[in-house]
């Protein structure tokens, strides 16, 4: 059986990930893919670089999925997150949940991605078309990357 949370520097294959959730008792599947987009805060983004501290990203991710299983009556839930340099359109994160009915699949999927974004030690650095770069959510880098938008 696949691990419930994985960090990988290889492209994510959502179809292969989804197949790991098949279950004879599952009448529903909900999936979420986070993609790299070409714009943030008015700046043209050319690529995104992800870094993680894998031992704690995995252990904290396991806690998130255990919490989802405690909150919602689901069958299986997995999450896969990329590291390394990603191009526009690539899948950065995938979350999938299978369950008997759709409500719990949707709700658990939403819970997992929301928690993954705020709890796991993962960082992303945006590389802009103008040659600058900045770590997302960091004030000092935001100040350097967007000098016109400092702490308004």
């Amino acid at each position: 059986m696949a691990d419930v949370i994985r960090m990988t520097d290889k492209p994510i294959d959502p179809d292969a990930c989804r197949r790991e959730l098949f279950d004879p008792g599952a009448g529903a599947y909900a999936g979420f893919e986070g993609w790299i987009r070409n714009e943030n805060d008015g700046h043209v983004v050319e690529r995104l670089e992800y870094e993680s501290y894998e031992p704690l990203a995995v252990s904290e991710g396991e806690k998130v999925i255990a919490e989802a299983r405690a909150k919602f009556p689901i069958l299986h839930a997995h999450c896969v997150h990329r590291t390394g340099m990603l191009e526009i359109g690539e899948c950065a994160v995938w979350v999938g949940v299978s369950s008997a009915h759709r409500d719990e699949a949707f709700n658990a999927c939403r819970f997992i991605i929301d928690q993954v974004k705020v709890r796991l030690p993962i960082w992303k650095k945006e590389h802009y078309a103008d040659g600058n770069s900045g770590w997302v959510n960091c004030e000092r880098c935001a100040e350097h990357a967007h000098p016109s938008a400092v702490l308004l």
Partner: protein
Amino acid sequence: MSKSITVRYFAIFREQAGRDEESVTLDVETAGDVFEQLRDRHKSAEPQGHCKVAINDEMADWNTAVNDGDTVLLFPPVAGG
């Protein structure tokens, strides 16, 4: 009391510190004390409340006690997804 600890830096903290790890001797009681002293040393501007900390590979709070020989991991604001 003075304590010898290993500090590991990630993402923007690594860039600001110019290294991914260092051994330091600091007069500290808590993880928060470590953060404040090293933030000043490395001229970082991140508010403590936006950051996270782990001690010896366990997530911790800023008021968690730091002991001699601990490894303190300083995490800047996370941004998964």
